[in-house]
């Protein structure tokens, strides 16, 4: 089973590293691949809570969008520098997650889920209404810039270079999340998912751990949000909408909540289907819904669960 996982992992990375070579032949384009990675990162981060901690986080688009706006605003008005913009987005998005997470951490079940949506919508309406700063419904346009190292330049304006930049950040974040889940702290999250009462009577202060997990999850969602803003050179209020949050959860469920890579798989299916189907029909969401229903009914462990079952 371990060799099988190793082979699958090597294949995944080989596939990701060679994307610019085959993506056009496969009928796609490099920016679409970047989008898969960015959205996949957000889905992996959301799944830290939904799949691994058993926490119904249905408002994660808020931190995704806040981060994208912060990146854009800083680059447009303050410092025209990609790394500074990226960092600003991550800091602001994570701070937002930490504050909201603190307020949410005492809630459970349906109350928690509804509160995450409600807080998410608060940020959506701020982005939508605050025309002077966010540009309202028209969104905010800005431009990602090359990174200057003095010795050389990383020309991020090129789609291919930006793809590899995204891939590097994605790899780093995925590695950090994998390490986290294998750590003693990560184990306490599994414990809380499995049985909160037992977790508490082992001596785990569950609310505090929930808060930390929420903040960490928002950190990685913020990374994705900043990258997403830079990818599109644009952010609009819809990136914070609760349907976007729902999409992240949907991807995790389709791909497989209990597997680490499942959400990336779900994101790939979702993003590619969105791109190809939306040019054919306005009702593309119907087909995504169909996939979702089929997975929930017949593959409770998602599509990744299918791969795991074969190996077992």
């Amino acid at each position, binding site marked *: 089973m371990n060799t099988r996982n190793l082979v699958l992992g090597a294949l995944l990375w080989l596939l990701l590293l060679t994307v610019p070579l085959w993506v056009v032949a496969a009928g796609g384009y490099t920016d679409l691949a970047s989008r898969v990675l960015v959205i996949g990162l957000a889905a992996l981060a959301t799944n830290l809570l939904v799949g691994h901690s058993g926490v119904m986080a249905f408002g994660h688009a808020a931190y995704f969008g806040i981060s994208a706006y912060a990146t854009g605003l800083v680059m447009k008005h303050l410092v025209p520098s990609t790394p500074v913009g990226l960092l600003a987005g991550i800091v602001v998005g994570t701070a937002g997650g930490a504050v909201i997470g603190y307020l949410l951490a005492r809630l459970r079940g349906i109350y928690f889920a509804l509160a995450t949506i409600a807080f998410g919508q608060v940020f959506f309406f701020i982005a939508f209404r605050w025309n002077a700063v966010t540009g309202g419904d028209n969104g905010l346009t800005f431009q990602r810039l090359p990174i200057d190292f003095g010795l050389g330049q990383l020309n991020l304006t090129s789609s291919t270079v930006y793809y590899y930049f995204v891939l590097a950040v994605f790899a780093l974040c995925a590695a950090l999340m994998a*390490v*986290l889940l*294998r*750590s*003693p*702290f*990560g*184990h*306490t999250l*599994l*414990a809380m998912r*499995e*049985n909160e*009462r*037992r977790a*508490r*009577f*082992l*001596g*785990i*202060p*569950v609310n505090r*751990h929930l808060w*930390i997990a929420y903040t960490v999850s928002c950190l990685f969602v913020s990374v994705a949000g900043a990258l997403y803003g830079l990818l599109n050179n644009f952010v609009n209020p819809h990136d914070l909408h609760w349907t976007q949050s729902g999409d992240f959860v949907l991807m995790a469920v389709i791909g497989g909540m209990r597997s680490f890579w499942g959400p990336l798989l779900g994101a790939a299916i979702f993003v590619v289907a969105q791109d190809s189907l939306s040019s054919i029909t306005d009702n593309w969401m119907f087909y995504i819904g169909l996939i979702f229903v089929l997975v929930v009914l017949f593959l409770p462990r998602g599509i990744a669960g299918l791969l795991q079952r074969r190996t077992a």
Partner: protein
Amino acid sequence: MSLLEVRGVTQRFGELAAVKDVSLSVEPGELHAIIGPNGAGKTTFFNMISGFHQPTAGHIVFDGVDVTAVAANQRVAMGMARTFQITEVFPELTVRQNLGIAVEVAEGQRLKFFATRAQRAATQARVDELLELGALGAHAERHVGELAHGDQRTTEIMMALATRPRLLLLDEPAAGMGTKETFDTAVLIRRLHRKHKLTIVLVEHDMRVIFNLADRITVLSEGEVLDRGTPDEIAASEKVKVAYLGEKREGS
């Protein structure tokens, strides 16, 4: 000095007083059983000791420290561990993972985002010790949810032990068990008590478990202490016989 001293605790749920002014003192190394008919307030009393409920009145002193207002998870850190009447484990994780999490938390690693190789090895060594103590070695890699009821209960007791408690609280350890499993559980508890010198307070319905194990017994009835003494004294007590009459068959 007593390890646990409960001073006149009362628990009121609205108009109903489930536990009325009950006191209890448990010496280090003692195995103290709490028995009583259904609805006597045993579990409520127990929940106050472990911090699951706050008493309406009274005090709980653990090892000289008043813990009445201390949160449940902090009481664990002070050396108080408990199991539940309905087994509380992590069903979709393996026995090894269940015990591993308990050990990591007990060793103060719960906020560590990275465990060194040495820490992992130490955790696994402690897990192996617990697996052996509970005779769970054969099931180590199986999900706890798949195990027989008795083995799930043993896993839960081992998780409680992983926290290196000075006081172990067992809520009806033989609940829902057959004769063989009940016997095995009693043997395990006796070993923890005699060989590992653990101080144990247990609530039990099954008399067969109690009378062979306990040093002292407290009998609760309708939320009050009915009688207290050694197993022989309780067996001979007229008051206890009256309280249990007509209910004797149901419990066992």
